[in-house]
């Protein structure tokens, strides 16, 4: 029973990472109607920035903040410089650009920071009082940080005029322009925000999976499974999907398929959702009367 509880809770902790990444995927999906395959690579690159900053002696939370800022600006730049020119292109073009971005970021990180594994330490000391036999202090910290970010994002979209404008721009760009919203910038901000959220996921995952240019490839699969399960067009579904996938992955890994086949769980979820319920569990059916 104790073992089960441990697996369950650390599943929730991992779920926070998947939820953040899934949310980032959904945000870009809503704006571009494509899945950003480079989301994981972007998060990985952000994590390297955090590592470089801590390596240079910047205190952890300052490095965390600076990394978020960097990720946001880099996300905005990627949208304006790389995505904008192909925005109206056929689906395949955009997908190829995403894959290219993934390869470029991967190689760039290897080139700048080398392919040897780096260690980004956890900001939560392993002897901290909030650790217990069920959850390590890092896992507790991970849950708190990812939940805090998700809540902040929710409050931003729900209650600020800019958040409302970003939702409007993703939903109905033509009408948005007619009320004076600068739609291009809203989409760029969306990319920036998604990049920053992905960066949080990367920084929280780094102490567990270690830092190398491929660190996010497995996590992106879980994130993708989470987003699909929750409904790729529903941010809150994707977040719930993230926690669900985290728990399912851990339980299945411990009791059903074994740790070596854990990643298969993500693939099974992806395939089953696409086959049996393409809209996902919370994919919203729009109610409209004409």
């Amino acid at each position, binding site marked *: 029973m104790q073992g089960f509880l441990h697996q369950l809770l650390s599943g929730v902790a991992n779920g926070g990472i998947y939820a953040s990444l899934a949310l980032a995927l959904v945000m870009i999906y809503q704006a571009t109607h494509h899945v950003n395959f480079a989301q994981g690579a972007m998060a990985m690159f952000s994590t390297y920035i955090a590592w470089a900053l801590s390596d240079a002696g910047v205190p952890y939370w300052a490095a965390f903040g600076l990394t978020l800022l960097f990720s946001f600006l880099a996300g905005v730049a990627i949208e304006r410089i790389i995505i904008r020119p192909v925005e109206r292109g056929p689906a395949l073009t955009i997908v190829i650009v995403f894959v290219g971005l993934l390869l470029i970021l991967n190689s760039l990180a290897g080139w700048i920071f080398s392919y040897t594994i780096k260690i980004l330490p956890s900001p939560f000391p392993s002897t901290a009082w909030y650790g217990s036999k069920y959850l390590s202090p890092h896992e507790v910290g991970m849950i708190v940080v990812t939940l805090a970010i998700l809540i902040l994002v929710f409050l931003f979209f729900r209650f600020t*005029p800019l958040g*409302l*404008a970003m*939702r*409007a721009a993703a*939903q*109905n760009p*033509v*009408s*948005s*322009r*007619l*009320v*004076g*919203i*600068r*739609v291009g910038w809203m989409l760029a901000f969306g990319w920036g925000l998604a990049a920053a959220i992905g960066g949080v996921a990367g920084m929280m995952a780094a102490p567990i999976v270690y830092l190398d240019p491929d660190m996010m490839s497995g996590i992106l699969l879980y994130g993708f499974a989470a987003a699909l399960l929750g409904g790729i067009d529903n941010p809150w579904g994707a977040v719930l999907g993230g926690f669900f996938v985290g728990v399912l992955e851990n339980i299945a890994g411990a009791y059903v398929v074994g740790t070596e086949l854990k990643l298969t769980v993500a693939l099974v979820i992806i395939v089953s959702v696409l086959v049996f319920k393409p809209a996902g569990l919370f994919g919203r059916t*729009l*109610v*409209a*009367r*004409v």
Partner: protein
Amino acid sequence: MTAILELRNVDAAYESTQILKAVNLAVEEGGIATLLGANGAGKTTILRAISNMMVRVSGEIQFAGRRIDCKATEDIARLGVAHVPDGRGTFLDLTVEENLRLGAYTRRDKGIATDFDRLRGYFPHLMDRRRQQAGTLSGGEQQMLAISRALMLRPKLLLLDEPSFGLAPLVVQEIFRILRTINRNEGVSMLLVEQNAHLALELADHAYLIETGCIVMSGPAASIAREDATRRAYLGY
């Protein structure tokens, strides 16, 4: 009276298909002009040309004394041109209140609460449904929401694309009555595109008839309504 909006020799095209040819048109400050014509004549395209939306425009468009023909859609809106597009342009997933807040997005003043009260005067039923998802409103309510959203911009000029489209006659009459009140109370100039020529001519003070992309006749609405030959030829009643 001075013109708040003036089109001089405006051509407009989608891709390679030319739609408008040398259109001249003016809306007086505080006045209501209506643009009448058959389906596909280019009425909607004129409104899109003014908002620089989806069409390629050449010629000169002046709003409140400055040229707007090379400005971006969002900048034209920021100058005070509120466009209620065909299909109403409602943000269906958002609530009524969020739609209205978006209308006021470019404004930085604090008057939004008083604007809600002002709108309640025109559309009391709509304002009772502030928390409802806009997609669940009836067609008439959605049209009222579209007009309200446009008014939240505090516009100088309102472009209306077939506000009567798909609505029951009683609802259409109510909307036209409210448009008249808005014009009187707020001094908003209007350019109204309509199929319902009879109602439009009653509301407007100036009318333009458009046929295959050219303005073929213009004049005071009352005199156009009186000319039997024109009415039969262009307006079909």
